[in-house]
């Protein structure tokens, strides 16, 4: 069976989950992406993406501590599963491999 495909948005969300570690939940993920990537992303989009990632088995979740700024409501905290880690690593390998195929003079020309 083919491995579930990791889309671009899914990759970003998954990376953010990994970066935030213990405090990865939907609102914090949305805000991080919004601030750090200068990329306007809507909360429902992130929410749906997380659900999809969970269906594919790349993240797992459990209910966590409530705080006052969220009106005493519980958080759903996400962590990257082993399958998620592998998918991210594979993704990174694939990119590195493609980068390495670009001839060095061209890269110098780009100023990269």
């Amino acid at each position, binding site marked *: 069976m083919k491995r579930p495909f990791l889309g671009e948005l899914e990759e970003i969300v998954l990376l953010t989950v990994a970066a935030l570690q213990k405090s990865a*939940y*939907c*609102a*914090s993920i*949305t*805000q991080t992406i*919004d601030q750090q990537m200068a990329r306007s992303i*809507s*909360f*429902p989009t992130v*929410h*749906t993406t997380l*659900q*999809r990632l*969970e*269906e594919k088995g790349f993240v*797992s979740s*459990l*209910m966590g501590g*409530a705080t*006052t*700024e*969220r*009106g*005493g*409501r*519980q*958080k*759903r905290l996400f962590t990257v599963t082993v399958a998620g880690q592998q998918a991210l690593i594979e993704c990174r390998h694939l990119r590195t491999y493609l980068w390495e195929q670009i001839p060095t003079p061209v890269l110098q020309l780009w100023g990269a």
Partner: protein
Amino acid sequence: MGRLTKGGRPPRWASWLLSRFSPPGAEDELQGDMLEMYTYWVQTKGVSSARWQYGLAVLRLIRPFALTRTSQPDHRSQPDSKTNFSLQPAMIRNYLLIAWRNLRKNQAYAFINVTGLALGMGCALLIFALVRYHYQTDHYHHNFNRIYQFTSRFSSPTGDINIQGIPYPLGQAIHTDYPDIDQVAMLDEWYAPLVVVPVANGDDKKIKDKNYKGAFVEPAYFRIFDYSWLAGGPDDLSQPGTVVMSAEMARNCFGTTTGVVGRVVRLDARIPARVVGVFADYRDDTDLAYSIMASWGSLKDQLGTRPEDQPFNNTNGSTHCFALFNDRFTVNDWNRQLLSFVKKYNPNQIKETSYPVVPFSDMHLSPEYGGVSRELLLSLVLIGLLLVGTASINFVNLATAQALNRAREVGVRKVLGSTKAQLFWQFMGETTLIVLLALVLAAGVCWYGQTLVHTYLHGPFRFTFYFSPSVIGWIALLVVAVILLAGLYPALVVAGFRPVVALAGRLTTQQAGGFSLRRGLVTAQFAISQLLIIGLVVVAYQLSYVRNKDLGFRKDAILTVSLPNTPTQDLSKLSTFRNLATTLPDVGQFSYSLGGPPQSGMTSQTRVRFDTRPQIEPYTPQQTWIDADYVGLYGLKLVAGRNLHPSDTAREALINETFMHRLGFNRPAEVLGRFLHKEGFAPLEIVGVLTDYNQLDLKQGINPLFMTTLASGFYSANIQLSSANYSRALSQLERVYNQVYPDSFFEPEFVEQQLQKAYQQEQTMGRLINCFAGLALFIGCMGLYGLVLFMVLQRRKEVGVRKVLGASVSSILWLFSREYVRLIGIAFLLSAPLGWWVMTSWLNNFAYKISMSPLMFLLSLLVTGVVVLLTVSFQSVKAAQMNPVKSLRNE
């Protein structure tokens, strides 16, 4: 929550939505996350943007837009007790599937239900459109509720007569005496306007169409009513010799609407008028359908004198006065001034005449001012309700009868934990599906019906349905009403099944939605059909009676031709036309008169003084102008005296018997040789008394009437054709007419047709009832067919056993039919008295009417009986002829 105060709270409605419609199990986290996001948005984007973002996000997060978690890996997916299973996608899918399978399995029933509902709802929509058309007429004028119309009221000891017309100088008088009234505009209708467009080289173009109406108006008219101008405007209309026209009229005259302003046409071929404006075509829902409007000043050429110089005691039914009232001068102010106004301008008739104002919004629905009667509209609405009722009854009957087939499904669902409410909503949902399906078809039925109305029921109005958002509300109301009517009872019955009984298959027809209730509903359907058939029969009889009644005058093979519309007729031309026409081989007798045949509607009323009596007679006899040949041509009979001597001026008079009786005499000899005095006329000597004939249509009785010779007031030629070759006669007459009146328009009309015009509304109603009665019977029979189909299936074994034991085909037929014969009888007991009552009140509109005979009622009984028995036997004959071996073998 202290940190929240800075940005306030997120929109309450959105939080509520989220709490109500979150995907199962996700409410807690979403509420929390969204609160945090709200704070974040408030800090980064501001409060208003945050609220906006919040609302948008919530809309995307709630069901049914959000993804639901299908894989349920942990404890969170365990549904709590609040979850409503009926709204789970899986359940909805299941409900739809079951509904679809049921429709497929019982195609005959589905067909009957959908078709019946579609026809019923289609007719209801059409009726709704018609009624709405009449209630919305002219509503689009933005001043609509402030517009009033001056009317005339003539009081006499026998009662008041209200007419829409007013004297010509009324508008001027109000203008000068009451400048506080916002706007006052006179309008004089101009029937069948003839417009002549000069063509540079060649014959002039003549435009005349019976569907066009014209008018003479004051410019203020356009400040009262809404018109939009394509070119020019109404301002120049204050000068005489100017005219404005609709775009359609402009295209007819000039072939275009541009560059028309400034061109000249001749009105009635005589009055030159310059076009000063072109307005966009008026909407069809208006009573002010004037295609061409000339300046009020031009009326001088039509009347011979300025309208303001016309006498105040002469009231013309086609002259109207509209006004826009405001706070400075209200309707009450006018009512207070009325008496002094009449004293000033019409001092001789203070007691008899007044000029009340009527809201313009009342005009379209008051029959006394020529509007549509509310009763007609009400009866249409009732018929619509009856049709919807009949179709819903079909549904209830078939659904409850079929409920048995679904007993097992219901049983299984209940055992697996369905609640009564869930089952109820499931069945209501199925009804909704069928009703919505029917609605789509109904829209088609309604659309088709509208084109039929256009072609067959054209009548005096152009019917167009104007859409507005409120229509959606009405349609929704209809749909909800039908769903409740049709679905409520079956759903309650099915949801109420006891699972043990249902699963054991021990439900009987008796338990499944009362057999007696079905009987009652079928009886109601029969009664509806019979009622409509009684109406149909009575209307048809009355209309044929009206058509064939001896009216007291001859009407076959007589033609009328209207003469040019001038203030007074040219006497020499009259005699030229008469001489030329009578030499034609196909023309028999020839006569001139004011308005064609009796009943043409062209009569006027006047007050007269009799002989030496000092007082004016306390009633208003009718008057008309005829020549000496009129009596012979229409075959009127003289009781005593002689016919009028030929004359061009009014000197002698014929009166009818009714007039003689009203004058207080019983023997004609007592009135012969005495005189009638009418203002502005020489004394008229009564030379003959005519047998009463119907000079008015049969809705009205016979009024006192006198006729005299006044050649300058002739506007019709009455021509009797002596051969059957009408087309040759017509073409020869047209040639002669055009030779004498080159500027006029030859427009022949047979008397027979003219007489039918008075009954247009009744004929329209007759056609509608025919159509709807047929539909009601059809829908009812479809339902009955379905019911019998079901019963035959149910009693297949019983029929088999009976046949084995020696029952004949006819006895089995009787087994199925006797039930319905009894129900028809009961329905007849309901519909006959109701029909008698309704139709008696309808017949009271006519002075001359048929008396209802038992035969008409029996006819309706017979028709329903035959149709019902045919429907029933169609299936039961099959059952009776079936081989009992087949039905008994499979167990």
